[in-house]
């Protein structure tokens, strides 16, 4: 099965005619991702990498039953394009661009929630389910189909975790990059339950990092998850960062260091892991040796 993206996903690339959209479409196609269409207003009727281009997402949904979209567009167009995808009925939007205005991300989140759409990113490397689909910019080299999921705030850590899992024989069911922007479309709390329900996932690696409160706010969800969750939090030795005025502290309280995050995650039932190389050992204890 895998989660979010599978062989059956019907992917539309928004911004397919741009340099980046064009290149990564070819890369995603190499992973046999089922890309059915692309959009670029004013370029409807052309093709890119053999994929038909339309002016609107609605056409992609109506003619190709697209259900997943991935964005390769400048940050300033992300709000518009995401809302377009949501309105057209797309159920998963993967936002690759970074530096999206914060207010826009909150608008996107509100819109997505109201319409039951999941938005991943911005500044995400994407989502990969090895042998099924690769939606975003994830280099497939380190990935191999397996039974461990990962969800990470960092693209590079997604790669290194997969590198570790593949190397140790566990492989991955699905790896989700939440994205590196300060305000994210989806967080750990929304992804973990999907892994819990996925029959092909036995354990999940959660990769957090200093800053923000996404790890802490995932704690209540982690308590509900039955599958083992391994938690890594980057920045254990990071110097204490600057804070954003008093208001942030009033709202978020005493959160945000790697230690408070690890503590919160462990308290909620996750297994803290210090380094990537410790993952196989801990997995072995929790779910036994890799299968196959």
């Amino acid at each position, binding site marked *: 099965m895998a989660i979010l993206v599978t062989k059956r996903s019907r992917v539309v690339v928004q911004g397919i005619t741009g340099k980046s959209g064009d290149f990564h479409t070819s890369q995603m196609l190499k992973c046999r991702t089922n890309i059915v269409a692309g959009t670029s207003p004013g370029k409807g009727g052309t093709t890119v990498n053999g994929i038909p281009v339309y002016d609107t997402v609605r056409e992609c949904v109506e003619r190709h039953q697209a259900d997943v979209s991935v964005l390769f567009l400048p940050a300033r167009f992300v709000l518009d394009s995401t809302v377009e995808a949501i309105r057209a009925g797309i159920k998963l939007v993967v936002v690759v661009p970074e530096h999206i205005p914060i207010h826009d991300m*909150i608008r996107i989140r509100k819109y997505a929630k109201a319409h039951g759409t999941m938005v991943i990113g911005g500044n995400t490397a994407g989502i990969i389910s090895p042998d099924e689909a690769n939606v975003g910019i994830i*280099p497939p080299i380190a990935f191999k189909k397996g039974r461990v999921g990962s969800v990470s705030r960092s693209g*590079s850590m997604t*790669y290194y975790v997969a590198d570790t899992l593949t190397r140790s024989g566990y492989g991955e069911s699905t790896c989700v990059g939440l994205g590196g922007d300060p305000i994210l479309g989806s967080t750990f709390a929304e992804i973990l339950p999907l892994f819990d329900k996925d029959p092909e996932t036995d354990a999940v690696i959660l990769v957090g990092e200093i800053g923000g409160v996404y790890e802490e706010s995932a704690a209540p969800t982690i308590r509900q998850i039955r599958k083992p969750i391994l938690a890594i939090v980057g*920045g254990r030795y990071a110097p204490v960062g600057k804070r954003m005025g008093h*208001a942030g502290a009033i*709202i978020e309280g005493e959160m945000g260091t790697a230690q408070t995050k690890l503590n919160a995650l462990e308290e909620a039932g996750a297994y803290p892991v210090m380094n990537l190389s410790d993952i196989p050992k801990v997995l072995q204890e929790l779910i036994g040796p890799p299968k196959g």
Partner: protein
Amino acid sequence: MRLYEYEAKELLAEHGIPIPKGFLARSVEEVTSCAERIGNRVVLKAQILSGGRGKAGGILFASSPQEAAEKAKSLLAAKIKGYQVKSVYVEQALDIAKELYIGVTIDRVNYKVVLIGCEEGGVEIEEIARRSPERIVKFSREIDEPFFSHDGVAFAKQIGFSGKALQTVAKISKAAVNIFYSYDAKLVEVNPLAQLQDGSLVAADARISIDEDALFRQGQLQKLGVENRHEEGEMTGREKQAREASIPYLDLDGDIGMFPGGAGFGIAGNDLIIDLGGQPANFMDSGGGPSPERIAKMLMLLEENPRVKAIFGARFGGVSRCDDFAKGVILFLKTGKLTKPIAMRMTGNMWEEGLRIFEEERKQNPHLFDKIEIFGIETPIAYVAKRAVELARAEERKTD
């Protein structure tokens, strides 16, 4: 992106929030004439992009233009919290009866816009939030939900105001929300909002932080002369140099030059090195899709850092492709400036191409590769990190 106090106050005033009489001065002479225009007692406030100015000696009172001139002389020569003081805001000194707090920010957990108020304010506000959270009034709203005057009235009432002050606080809170939306702010803070002896209310200090990523649509801020800036007061020379090249970079205390890919592994890589007994000399991030030139620049920063004994490199090509990465590394190697050993791993998008570029160059100029060890997907990253730590130890022994 934080605004200077005088900029923030300009926005406040434009939106109808009362501010004390005040002027920006860039020289002792200007301070004197501003103090004369204001008359009475004035306060000189160093314009730096940092909080905690008061405790750091950045806020001084003066009872006469003469005294203001004297104090301005030392203030304009001072460095406060790492910032050279280049300008002073000269403001009428206030007869404050009570300090209040009003702020608007983003609740990142719940994706809401929150208006925060408290009948106590000033520097103690965080302490109050911790000790007696029930005294903090929070109005949490969906983004773009209109904030009406009657919302302001309800908010002011909940803080505990009545009569004329209720109307004023209502107006100020509505104005703060307007500013928050109008300028794509991350934070709008009127703190302290001062209630004077005569009962009137005035914004004694203000902090506004703008979302850099939304600056492109903030034509009005550009007109006001606000441009993308960073809180660089406490930056080292190398950090400033990196920033000019748009490379996120932070000096640390160790001796291993960190040359990673994305920010995520940039952070986790530091943990890895320390766990392996090493000490990173820096934090660095290449940003998405760096050009060969930027890659070369990153290496040059480490080469030029005298602390650095060895370099740990890691590239997992995603949006940043290995071919561009290899080109950048070679660009640097060709300068002939490399004196430090590098242990580096490269894999990910276009890794074959990257490898090919290295091999071709090695055929042409084998000596360029004397001090660099390049690993691929077959080698675990922890091994490469360990190798970097070893190299640093070896260099250390050499210099001993």
